[in-house]
């Protein structure tokens, strides 16, 4: 067992040895080492988070045909650090009539709900926080803490804009949790486990090739969960100033902002874990754990880029459109897809792998096609009801 094969265990054993040599109780030393590991992981994530600010600004600039931050340092790389200094020295304001304790806890809780997700992210086959056997549910549970933080921020600010923003954001998050959970059951069906590591280990073929529709629904639900465009109606700067975080200034606002960016990056990571093989890439992950980390971070970055691509391409939708889209379209489709996938899995489990893949893809295409046809016919009826059949007939001539 050397450092390059299992760095986490070797480092932990080495540190525990040192602490025990100092005369520390062995159990206590073990707990201390685990705490240090968590601390280091959070530090690394925060540094990545700082760079994400730069990445986000550069990418949005490219999408909008601009250059982006380019004054400070090479390619503007020092810009995010300058931003942090600015956030730190800004005046920390608390609005009149705010509920002080709740107001101050909310940003921390928001950041925490994102950081806690990394407990179940396997960075390499041997490097992971905990191999929970219900990782899928854990993601949803962490999301509900995020929901709580937003409602706390919106309510405690004593501001109508923040309260309305919080209402909207919570409506989005609570409703899109349903199709997200349903769709996350599909990798569970394929791999026979809810644990993140087991899902990756079973992915001899990327699950996006088995269930592209599930990958798409997961992406949509993740974007909604993040509150990014087209589901950023909680922010709605033309109507609500900035939504639930109107009253926050300085680093407290920074916590929400950084939390959102890291959340997007994290969900890029979960997308890659569930549907793109996580740290696996043609056996490269067996070479070295460090290579595996590089692969999963790269895939997470690609997922993050797709989320940004969507954000800066589409426009915001209204809340009734969002609710109708979720409850009348996405949720039924997700549930039907889960049922069809479970049925096909039971039928084709013992068949050859090519038959299995073909059957899965075909069932996906059929579910997508049928649901789109149903939506189209309903839309046509609705248009006829509103405009009257005559105009449509005339328009076609």
């Amino acid at each position, binding site marked *: 067992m050397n450092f390059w094969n299992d760095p986490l265990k070797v480092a932990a054993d080495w540190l525990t040895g040192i602490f025990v040599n100092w005369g520390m109780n062995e159990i206590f030393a073990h707990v201390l080492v685990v705490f240090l590991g968590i601390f280091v992981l959070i530090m690394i994530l925060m540094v990545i988070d700082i760079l994400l600010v730069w990445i986000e600004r550069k990418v949005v600039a490219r999408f909008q045909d601009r250059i982006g931050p380019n004054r400070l340092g090479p390619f503007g790389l020092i810009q995010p650090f300058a931003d942090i200094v600015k956030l730190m020295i800004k005046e920390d304001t608390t609005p009149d009539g705010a509920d002080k304790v709740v107001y101050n806890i909310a940003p921390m809780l928001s950041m925490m709900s994102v950081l806690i997700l990394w407990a179940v992210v396997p960075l390499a086959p041997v490097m992971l926080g905990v191999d929970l056997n*219900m990782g899928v549910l854990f993601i949803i549970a962490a999301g*509900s803490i995020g929901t709580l933080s937003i409602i706390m921020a919106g309510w405690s600010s004593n501001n109508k804009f923040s309260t309305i923003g919080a209402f909207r954001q919570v409506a989005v998050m609570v409703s899109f949790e349903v199709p997200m959970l349903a769709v996350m059951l599909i990798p569970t069906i394929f791999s026979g486990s809810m644990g993140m590591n087991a899902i990756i280990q079973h992915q001899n073929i990327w699950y996006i090739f088995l269930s592209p529709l599930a990958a798409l629904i997961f992406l949509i639900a993740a974007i909604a969960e993040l509150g990014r465009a087209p589901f950023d109606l909680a922010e709605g700067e033309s109507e609500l100033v900035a939504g639930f975080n109107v009253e926050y200034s300085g680093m407290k606002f920074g916590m929400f902002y950084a939390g959102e960016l890291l959340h997007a990056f994290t969900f890029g990571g979960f997308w890659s874990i569930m549907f793109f093989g996580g740290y696996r890439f043609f056996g490269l992950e067996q070479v070295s754990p460090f290579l595996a980390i590089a692969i999963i971070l790269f895939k997470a970055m690609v997922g993050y880029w797709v989320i940004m691509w969507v954000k800066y391409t589409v426009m915001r939708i209204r809340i009734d459109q969002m609710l109708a889209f979720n409850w009348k379209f996405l949720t039924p489709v997700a549930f039907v897809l889960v049922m069809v996938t479970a049925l096909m899995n039971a039928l084709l489990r013992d068949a050859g792998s090519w038959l299995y893949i073909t059957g899965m893809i075909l069932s996906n295409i059929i579910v997508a096609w049928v649901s789109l046809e149903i939506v189209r016919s309903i839309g046509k009826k609705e248009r006829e009801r509103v405009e009257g059949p005559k105009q449509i007939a005339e328009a076609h001539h």
Partner: protein
Amino acid sequence: MTGEQIIFLVVGVVTLVCGLLVVTVRNLVHAALWLVATLFGVAILYTLLNASFLAVVQVVVYIGAIAILFIFAVMLTRRQSAETGDSVNKNWWAGALLAVLTFAGLAFLLQSWSGFSKQAAAIPSGFDAINQLGDALTSPAGYVLPFEVASVLLLAALVGAVYLAFNKK
């Protein structure tokens, strides 16, 4: 005292204090937030019992859905719930007595149970609690009937709610 016992005692005391605060604080939103803290404490207790599935479900269902619904309801009725008057009525001693008696009865019952002072057996490695739970809930020899009855009950409640909210034209 083992580390697990210390954690249990700390979590138990915190959960009890939070539960007490739920019924004593004046501000209704604060009460709902203390309720969230209480439910978290219960989730940690489940984790200590190696029932991590129940712990996560506790967070998803009770905090993610029910507590959020509470907070919504309280926030939407903010004007009506202006905090005036006593938070306890004149029957508080009866409630306290009932609580103490229930606790004493439960403690007495558990005391006479043979497993009360035994150490829990270690869980064998490779034991998959989720698989066991899934099998128990879906196998005819297990709990499939109660499970399905509960599902039908929930479905009936859902249909009833939709019917009540449905706007008849």
